[in-house]
C-alpha cells in the first residue's frame, strides 16, 4: 500500500510554476530521498502534502485515503527551519505538540535522550544552537510514534559533527521500519541514507526509483596499453559492438560496457589481439554524476 500518492500536483506563484504536474509514489518502509537543486520545488512539494500551502491543482493521498481526517497526526514533519515558541522550553514546546497530536502528555525523557537534549530540557528554545533546534524538531516529529517522517533539509546549516549526529538519528529511526521522506540537495546525504530517490528540477520529476536503479549499474571502464599499441587498441575497441560512449582521455580510453559484459572480457579481447593492457579500472558512477547528468538538460 502506498503511504503517499501524489498525482499531477501543480503549484503556481504568479507565472512561476514551483510544482509542475508532479507525480510520486512512496511505499511503506522506504527511506525516500527527494533530490534537487535549491529552488527545484522540494519544499513546495512537502508543504503541499502537509497542507501548509494550497496546490493550484492536482491531488495527494495519504495511506490510500484510509486514515481518516486526522491523517497528519500519523506523520512527523520537519519543514525548513524548526519552528517553536522561543520563550518556551523543550518540555513546554513538546507538550504543545503532544496536545496537537492528541497523545498522552507523558514524560519526554526517552525522546530527549535520543536527540541528546535531556540536559537542556529546561532551557528556552531561543537559547538553543541551530543543531539543538534541529534535534528538538526531530524529537517533536517522533511524538506519537508516527508512521511517516518528513524531513526537509535536516542537516542544513549544521557543522560536520551536527550533520553526523542528525544522520545517525535518522538511520536509527529508519532501522525501526518507519517510512522516511527526506528532501535534500546534499547528494552524499541521500546516497548514504535513502533506499529510494526522486530527482526534481523546476517542479518536475526527472527520475525516480531505488537508489541502485538510478545509479547506473553499467560501470565506466578505463584502459590503457603501451604507447605503440594504443592506436591498435583504439581500433579494436571501436569495432567492438558491446562497447559504447568511448572517449580518449590523454593516454587512456574510457568507455561503458553493454549490459551482460564484464571488464575482464575487455582484457581477454585485448590479449587475444596481442595487446597487453597496463591499466584497467572499473568505476561505478556516483549519484552525483547521475544527478548532474539527469539535471543538466
Amino acid at each position, binding site marked *: 500500500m502506498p503511504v503517499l500518492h501524489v498525482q499531477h500536483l501543480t503549484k503556481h506563484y504568479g507565472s512561476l510554476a514551483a510544482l509542475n504536474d508532479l507525480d510520486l509514489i512512496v511505499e511503506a518502509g522506504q527511506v525516500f530521498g527527494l533530490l534537487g537543486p535549491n529552488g527545484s520545488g522540494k519544499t513546495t512539494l512537502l508543504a503541499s502534502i502537509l497542507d501548509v*500551502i494550497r496546490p493550484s491543482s492536482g491531488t495527494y493521498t495519504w495511506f490510500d485515503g484510509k486514515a481518516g*481526517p486526522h491523517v497528519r497526526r500519523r*506523520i512527523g514533519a520537519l*519543514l525548513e527551519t524548526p519552528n*517553536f515558541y522561543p520563550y518556551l522550553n523543550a518540555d513546554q514546546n513538546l507538550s504543545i505538540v503532544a496536545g496537537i497530536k492528541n497523545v498522552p502528555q507523558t514524560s519526554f525523557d526517552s525522546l530527549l535522550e535520543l536527540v541528546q537534549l535531556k540536559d537542556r530540557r529546561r532551557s528556552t528554545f531561543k537559547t538553543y544552537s541551530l543543531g539543538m533546534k534541529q534535534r528538538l524538531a526531530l524529537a*517533536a516529529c517522533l511524538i506519537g510514534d508516527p508512521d511517516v517522517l518528513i524531513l526537509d533539509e535536516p542537516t542544513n546549516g549544521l557543522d560536520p559533527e551536527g550533520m553526523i549526529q542528525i544522520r545517525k538519528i535518522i538511520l536509527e529511526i529508519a532501522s525501526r521500519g518507519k517510512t522516511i521522506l527526506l528532501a535534500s540537495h546534499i547528494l552524499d546525504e541521500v546516497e548514504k541514507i535513502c533506499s529510494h530517490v526522486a530527482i526534481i528540477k523546476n517542479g518536475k520529476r526527472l527520475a525516480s526509483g531505488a537508489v541502485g536503479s538510478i545509479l547506473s549499474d553499467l560501470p565506466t571502464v578505463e584502459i590503457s596499453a603501451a604507447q605503440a599499441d594504443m592506436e591498435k587498441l583504439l581500433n579494436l575497441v571501436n569495432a567492438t559492438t558491446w562497447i559504447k560512449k568511448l572517449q580518449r582521455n590523454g593516454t587512456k580510453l574510457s568507455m561503458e560496457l553493454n549490459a551482460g559484459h564484464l571488464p575482464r572480457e575487455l582484457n581477454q579481447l585485448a590479449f587475444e589481439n596481442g595487446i597487453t593492457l597496463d591499466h584497467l579500472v572499473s568505476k561505478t558512477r556516483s549519484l552525483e554524476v547521475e544527478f548532474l547528468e539527469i539535471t543538466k538538460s
Partner: protein
Amino acid sequence: MNPLNLLSLEWKRFSPNTTFRIVALLYIGAFALVVYLAHLIGGSLNINNNGQSFNPTADLFTYPKNWELLAYIGSWVNATLLGFLGVFMTTLEFSNKTLRQSIIFGLTRFELALSKVLAALALALFATLIYLIIGMSSTILSHASPGFSLPPLTCLLGFFLQAFGFLLLGMMTALLIRQTALATLTYLAYVLFVEMVCRWIFYFSVAKTRLLLFLPDSALQSLTPLPVPQAAQQMISSNAALLPLSTLESGLAALLYLSLFIAILYQRLTKTDL
C-alpha cells in the same frame, strides 16, 4: 479535537509569554485606575449655581448609569489593549511560523481557526469578568451609590460583545498584514482616529447621516455608550444625525461585524498559504 483541548493548547502557547502577561495585567490596572480616577474626580466636582452647589456628574455614579459609565471606560481599554492583544497573539504566530508548524504537527485548518476564535472568546469572557469585579468593587466602595448591584444585562452583554469584537478585529488585521509593527500601527490608528476622522469628514462634507455610526469601530463603541446627563440628551435628540445607535441597532451591527470578522479569520486560516 475537543474545543476545551484547543483552548488549553492556546493557554499553553500564550500564558508564559511576557508581553501577553504584561498586557493582561495592564488591562486590569488601566481599567481599575481610570475607574478610580473617574470616581475621585466625579465625586469632588461641584458647580455653584445661584448660590446652590451641586455635582453635575452625580447621577453617573448611581445605578444603572454607574455600570454604563464603567462599560464606557472599559470600551477604551477594550479598543486599545484587548485589540492589541488580538494583534499580538496572531502576529507572534506568524513571526515564529508556529501557525504553519501547528498544521505540520497535525492540527486541521478548521481546528486552527476554531482555536483562535475560542481564544478570543475566552479573553472576552475574562475582560467581562474584570468588568464585573471592578464594577462590583466600585459600587460597593462608591460614596454616591453605596451597596451591591449587578450590571443591567444590556451593559454586560454589550461589554462582552465589544471585547470579543475588538479582539477579532485585532486578529483579523494581523491575519491580513502579518507583520507585528505594521499590524499594530494599522489597528490602533484605525480604532483611535482613522475611522473617526473619516466619519467627520464625510459628515461635514458629504452627508449628515446616521449610517456612519454603523462603521465597525463606531458600532462596537456604541455597545457601551457614554451615559449623558438629561439636558445633553435633549440636545442630541433634536438632531437626528447625531442620535446614537439604539441598543438593538448597535447589537445587531456588532453581531454582523462579529460574523464578518470570524468569516474573514476562517477564510484566511483555511484557504491561504501559511
